[in-house]
């Protein structure tokens, strides 16, 4: 099927998931798709594009320009240009929250804290260091150790009544702490909330925050309880876009619009 309007494509090939956003010239999201990045980034990006175009009722011929981002941004065969995920998340978030904001993006393999002024201009940014603590990878590592599926973590954390506090920076040391808590008879719900708390702490300590905080990323999309916990931790309301996992792809599509 071919639509009549020109569209812009943003492709975010992340370490964990590939996201594609199709937008029109008015900045409306017409179609999107999310898929595990796997090992063949090119094929995954292609699949995501096809599904997104289908949702947008558009065809490849309608695409004016494509911009790719994320770790695999250079592996997208149909991309016209590439931008960093820092820039794309910034652009994507500012579309929904056009004000001075601090963006916390919790991704599969890295975290970002990005600061924008009221014009959307990037003031600064930070990424997590080499360590995976505080990223989606930390939760992915813990999930099999606790023998619970990733997608059940959010629900379990919400049931906690006596959160376990984990002290270590290190994912491996944290795993040891988890085992110790299991041995001591702590409830899985309390341990999972402790894991969430650990993720938040690692991110919060990356930078100081401004008045308006936005949270994005796959980890936030699948674990919205993290947002509530962060709000409680920093004592302020947090803004979350409608599709927190798509912010990078949306930003890339906005770059494509120029």
């Amino acid at each position, binding site marked *: 099927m071919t639509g009549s309007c020109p569209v812009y494509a943003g492709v975010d090939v992340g370490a964990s998931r590939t996201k594609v956003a199709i937008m029109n010239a008015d900045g409306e999201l017409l179609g999107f798709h999310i898929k595990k990045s796997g090992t063949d980034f090119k094929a995954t990006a292609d699949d995501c594009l096809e599904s997104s175009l289908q949702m947008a009722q558009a065809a490849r011929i309608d695409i004016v320009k494509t911009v790719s981002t994320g770790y695999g941004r250079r592996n997208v065969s*149909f991309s016209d240009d590439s931008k960093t995920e820092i820039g794309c998340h910034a652009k994507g978030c500012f579309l929904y929250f056009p004000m001075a904001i601090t963006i916390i993006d919790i991704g599969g393999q890295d975290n970002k804290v990005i600061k924008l002024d009221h014009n959307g*201009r*990037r003031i600064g940014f930070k*990424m997590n260091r080499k360590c995976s603590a505080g990223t989606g990878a930390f939760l992915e590592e813990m999930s099999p150790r606790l023998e619970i599926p990733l997608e059940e973590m959010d629900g379990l954390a919400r049931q906690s009544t006596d959160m376990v506090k984990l002290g270590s920076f290190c994912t491996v040391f944290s795993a040891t702490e988890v085992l110790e808590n299991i041995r001591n008879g702590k409830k899985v719900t309390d341990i999972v909330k402790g894991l969430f708390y650990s993720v938040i702490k690692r991110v919060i300590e990356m930078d100081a925050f401004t008045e308006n905080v936005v949270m994005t990323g796959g980890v936030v999309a699948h674990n919205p309880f993290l947002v509530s916990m962060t709000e409680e931790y920093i004592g302020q309301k947090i803004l979350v876009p409608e599709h927190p996992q798509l912010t990078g792809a949306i930003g890339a599509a906005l770059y494509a619009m120029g």
Partner: protein
Amino acid sequence: MSDEKKPVIRRLTTSKDMGKFMADYYYELDDAAKTGKQKIAWCTSVGPAEILRGMGFLTYFPETHSAMLGTSRMATDLIPKANAIGYSPDICSYLTADIGAFLEGVTPLAKVFKGIESPPKPDVLVFNTNQCRDVQDWFNWYGEKFNVPVVGVHSYVGVGDVTSAHVTSIAKQMENMVEPLEKVAGRKLDMDEFKQAVALSRECSDLWEKCLAAAAAKPSPLTFFDGTTLMGPAVVGRGTQKAIDAYNLLLEELEERADQGLGALEEERFRIYWDGMPVWGRLGMHSKLFASLKTNVIASTYCSSWIFSALDPDDPFNSMARAYTELFIVRGDDYKEQYIKERMDFFNVDGIIYHDAKTCPNNSNCRYGMPQRLAEETGIPSLTINGDLNDLRLLSDEQTKTNVEAFIEQLEEG
């Protein structure tokens, strides 16, 4: 997929002369070690080399060897050998790489210079802790291995103004080194030779300072990555005429480039100041990364560490004490901030990158809020990258790349 144009980096023709300088230097040391015709002192890179020259020692600088272990990417495999005998992976990876190389009996010198099989055996080891305490431990280890004396200067840390008390104390320590060194040298310190070495060191320092200052031209004729190898003569050859000759040639070429408006990069959109050590095993990669972004890292605190403007042949001990204490690395944060601010202004940079080197806290100036304070004062944006001078296990190339690209995007978007 977007095309990436291969960046054009203009090589300096005098870099070949620098290469020859280093080759001659190592062959002279190797010959002395094999024939025993001249005594060899191992010296820290900002140690009191001039005193050693005044006694006829040839000087070898293990830090340069460690940097070569880094550039040759041998270091990462050797560091664990030193870790295994008790030297933590968290301490200086120059030390651990160098000791690891000794334990394994390997050296990059053998790969680069035909006929050289090992670093030259020392007759004495001489350190100054002005850069860090690790050099003392490093040299003491070799002192035991080779059963040779180790003498050193214990410097101050976090120095604000360099006072006469600092100078007197350090000068006294340097004077006290003379007697034990004379025993090893088998001769007296010749004051004329010593003063001559101080005079030559000063001249070398002044020339090197001018070479680095040439990067203030727009476009800059020099990159930081060039500087890290061009500084070789200032490190190992200060106090000799050969180093002066080498820098006269370099300065001539840099000034010629500046006059012609010829930059080290074909296109220089942004100018960056680098604080901290280079990642030796990634010099080429980083050089190409910045060049591909049409960005020149033009100046650094690191390459300026071999500028010793206080040296005065008429007052050799006191002036050496002052020169080796005035160094950036010895100073307190107030001085360092002011220094970096002035340098950023002088070189007219668009941004500053701090390298937080995991195993080199003394060369990582981003750990106590300096980037934030300087950004507030100057409005110049900064980026901190995590890495290390030698241990490649401590860095992520992909993260570095993303950080640098995002930083340049930020500059582009104003």
